[in-house]
């Protein structure tokens, strides 16, 4: 039989000769009726895919949701306070993008979408146009027929990776949805008198403190409210970020996102951590990051 490599090479030749393609060149379409056993695209990594597969799920497609949003006029900002126009724009745009992702998931018969990534891009440097993209891989239990009652009306979305999703299932939890909280806050500029009073001292800028504190709490309470609405037990993988986008230094978006989870009825604690030595390192896959680190260290010295 020969080595694994020899078997792989010879069976590969059979496959390729069968379809008569030159490697890398797109094959001409075979006709419209060719979707009997269509191939499935996924952006899961090999690790994620194999683990999702292990947990009894199969990928059913790389799914997208896109919302290009026009952000309305903001007017003159004074004082500490939330910028409602921006808060609602950023939340609605993200909800639109994830909503479309969910709609696509329903269309392909997925019960959920894992590894959801949200990205925002400003279009052409214009501050009033932003593109929100949600990308993830739809999954469904293996062997489940499409369009039966086993498919939930609203597939869950989760920002967790395939690995984390598998771990979550093993721990006896199920994701119920993506929850978000958004708050865009304007932080008051210092008046000339305050500036004169404080510029030579080391003191707390209490106006800033209260503004940033309030804004972050607002974002988190909104996330909490969303989780409550989903009847979740908890929220895992919660991240908070502070983004200034294109608004300069005094307008800040606080964005909290996480995955709401609920426990399975027959849950037991049976996660046992194990030690692993990975044969992969990131030298090749992300040369930029390594380089950047070196540079930073050098600067610090």
């Amino acid at each position, binding site marked *: 039989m020969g080595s694994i*490599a*020899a078997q792989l*090479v010879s069976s590969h030749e059979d496959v390729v000769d069968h379809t008569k393609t030159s490697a890398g060149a*797109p*094959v001409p379409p075979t006709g419209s009726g060719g979707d009997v056993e269509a*191939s499935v695209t996924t*952006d899961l990594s*090999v690790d994620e895919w194999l683990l999702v597969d292990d947990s009894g799920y199969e990928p059913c497609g*790389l799914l997208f949701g*896109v919302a290009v949003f026009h952000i309305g006029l903001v007017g003159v900002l004074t004082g500490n306070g939330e910028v409602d126009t921006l808060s609602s724009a950023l939340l609605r745009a993200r909800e639109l993008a994830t909503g479309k992702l969910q709609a696509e998931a329903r269309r392909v018969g997925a019960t959920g979408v894992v590894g959801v990534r949200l990205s925002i891009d400003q279009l052409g440097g214009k501050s009033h146009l932003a593109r929100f993209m949600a990308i993830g891989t739809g999954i469904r239990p293996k062997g489940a027929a499409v369009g039966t009652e086993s498919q939930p009306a609203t597939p869950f979305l989760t920002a967790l990776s395939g690995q984390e999703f598998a771990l979550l299932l093993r721990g006896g939890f199920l994701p119920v949805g993506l929850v978000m909280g958004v708050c865009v806050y304007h932080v008051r500029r210092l008046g000339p008198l305050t500036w004169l009073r404080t510029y030579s001292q080391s003191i707390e800028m209490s106006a800033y403190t209260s503004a940033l504190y309030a804004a972050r709490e607002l974002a988190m309470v909104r996330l909490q409210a969303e989780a409550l609405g989903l009847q979740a037990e908890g929220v895992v993988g919660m991240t908070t970020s502070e983004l200034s986008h294109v608004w300069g230094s005094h307008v800040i978006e606080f964005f909290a996102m996480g995955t709401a989870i609920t426990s399975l009825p027959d849950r037991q604690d049976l996660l046992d951590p194990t030690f692993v030595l990975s044969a992969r390192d990131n030298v090749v896959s992300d040369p930029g990051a390594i380089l950047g680190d070196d540079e930073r260290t050098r600067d610090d010295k």
Partner: protein
Amino acid sequence: MTDEPSVSEQESSSPRGRRLQGVPPAGSRRIGDLQSGAPWSSQQAVGAEATLRDIGFEPAGVVMGSVYSYGYPYRARLRSGTSSSYGSGSYANSTLDGPMLTKRSGGYVHDWSIGPAGQPVMDMGWTWEETRSQQRHRRIASEAVDHLVQEARAIGAHGVVGIQFGTTSMGKDGIGADVYELSVMGTAVRAPGVEPVKHPFTTHLAATDVAKLVAHGYAPVSFHVGISVVCAQLGATTRRSLRSMDNGEVEQYSEVTEKSLQIARRDLERTSLSAGSVILAATPLVHVNRSMNTTYEATVRIPASRVRRFEHSGVQSGLHYQPIVRLNEQP
């Protein structure tokens, strides 16, 4: 340019005298050296090297393919082509055209439909399938991969792993033609003692991932880039919403981008090789081009590798190819 003849001269003087079409003289020389036993190179990490040898492959050398191209926007209505001068780094000779817009759109189109694969679809001035611009991008990508495969074949490789795909935009030239370089680079691998093949397998997955796949009954088949260009003339609704002072979705923009992503995905899926196979994709690269508030163009590229079922009777070593769950994973 006087480069052309000298190139063929140099290529024919490479050790095996084999002309590699589209590969520059230095590349042919490098491949020639590799053929005659020069030290191999590999982009795979040291640990990954071990997993590669465990399934019976050894590195054969780094191979690449690169295409430098420019194309004029539709407005210019000019025929354009990739330069054939080696000095500017071009190794493709195809003639290319800018994107094609056929009709003006009177208003906003809600009803999207996609025809059978490969059929141009035109609907009230919207054309989002098989535009010439899309054909050009697809051709460039497949040419680059062809060059890489050609290099791999020349050094007797049976496969290429860890293909990295990148485009470098050189911006626009004086009359608005977009200029970019597309390159692919990967590590060719060889199964010692096995006859050379016509079609080496290609994948963007790293050696470790390939070993894991093999351990779980899958094998890499081929690397593709799913490509789509969707271009639309702005409708009246879009113009209105761009002028608006309120929050609101620019639906046409959203849909153009979404369509483009979907078409790129279908481009990957329609290269159907074996039924029920799985395509492992990298993150889609989306590039948007707005010109003068009259058109909106979304270019999507999704690098991906197809894998197939593969049952083997060999024994892998005691190394454990378990998918790794890290408890400290960053979300």
